[in-house]
């Protein structure tokens, strides 16, 4: 009975989807409205007008910077949500049997060996977001993943020391705060929230702001991801 209902529902969803997709502008066409309207403008003027050679970076940090402002707030919301749901809940009624294996020597050695290189790569990704693929969030996630790997090897207490307790709430809020900061700088300098200077002589300011945004997103992302991991992992 349930199976029949589910398959009926799936078929009912599939038919309109397939029909509608059949009427979309053909895949890969350079003549579709999606390609000829706003994005044509971005591709044409983005590199000089918005300050980064990577047009995707232009779009997420400059043209549609407010979306990213919202996006970093979403990650912060996730952190606050995980903290709100997990922090110091009541004692477990059904404790999980936790066999604790110390990680093998191979894992420990490899992680220790690779850690500096991973960190370097992450920083490279963050700082080169405006000229190559990647950017703040990607690099931040790699840093966060490094923190997670180090937690497995060093143990949680050692790894937590990477991010000082006192600075942690500030760092967790780093990404939205950087956005608000740059936004207000734009407000005073250009007269609009998140405005970037477009004057020829001020291009270095623009690049610097873009870089600061990338660093802020990267740092905030890394700290938030590792904090979420630690909070979830600390639940036994």
């Amino acid at each position, binding site marked *: 009975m349930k199976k029949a209902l589910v398959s009926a529902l799936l078929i009912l969803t599939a038919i309109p989807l397939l029909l509608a997709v059949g009427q979309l502008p053909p895949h890969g066409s350079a003549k579709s409205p999606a390609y000829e309207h706003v994005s044509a403008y971005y591709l044409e003027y983005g590199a000089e007008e918005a300050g980064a050679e990577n047009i995707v*970076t232009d779009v997420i940090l400059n043209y549609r910077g407010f979306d990213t402002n919202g996006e970093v707030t979403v990650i912060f919301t996730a952190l606050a949500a995980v903290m709100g749901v997990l922090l110091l809940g009541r004692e477990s009624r059904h404790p999980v049997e936790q066999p604790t294996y110390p990680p093998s020597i191979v894992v420990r050695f490899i992680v220790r060996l690779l850690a500096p290189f991973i960190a370097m790569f992450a920083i490279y990704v963050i700082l080169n977001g405006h000229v190559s693929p990647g950017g703040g969030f990607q690099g931040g996630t790699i840093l966060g993943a490094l923190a997670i790997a180090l937690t497995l090897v060093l143990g949680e207490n050692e790894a937590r020391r990477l991010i000082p307790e006192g600075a942690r709430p500030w760092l967790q809020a780093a990404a939205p705060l950087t956005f608000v900061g740059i936004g207000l700088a734009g407000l005073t300098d250009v007269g609009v929230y998140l405005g970037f200077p477009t004057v020829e002589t001020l291009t270095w300011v623009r690049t610097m702001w873009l870089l600061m945004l990338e660093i802020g997103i990267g740092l905030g992302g890394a700290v938030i991801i590792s904090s979420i991991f630690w909070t979830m992992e600390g639940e*036994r």
Partner: protein
Amino acid sequence: MSQVFDIVLLLLLITCAVAVIRSKDLLAAAIIFSAYSLIMCIIWQLRGAPDVAMTEAAVGAGVTTVLFLVTISRTVRREK
């Protein structure tokens, strides 16, 4: 030629998705999900979207899988 490669990748993607759903072992499902994300990431790289591919590799295959693994280690490993 590239058309064939595309089709192979897309079929692999669908196979992975089905395997995630069918596997009774949640740990295996999480690992297959990671593979699924990586295939998706290759497809996006081929489609000229390296930024998205990179994010998917870091977030989809990396962080999401880690979160699944933590959850599985804190709850149960087998689906009933």
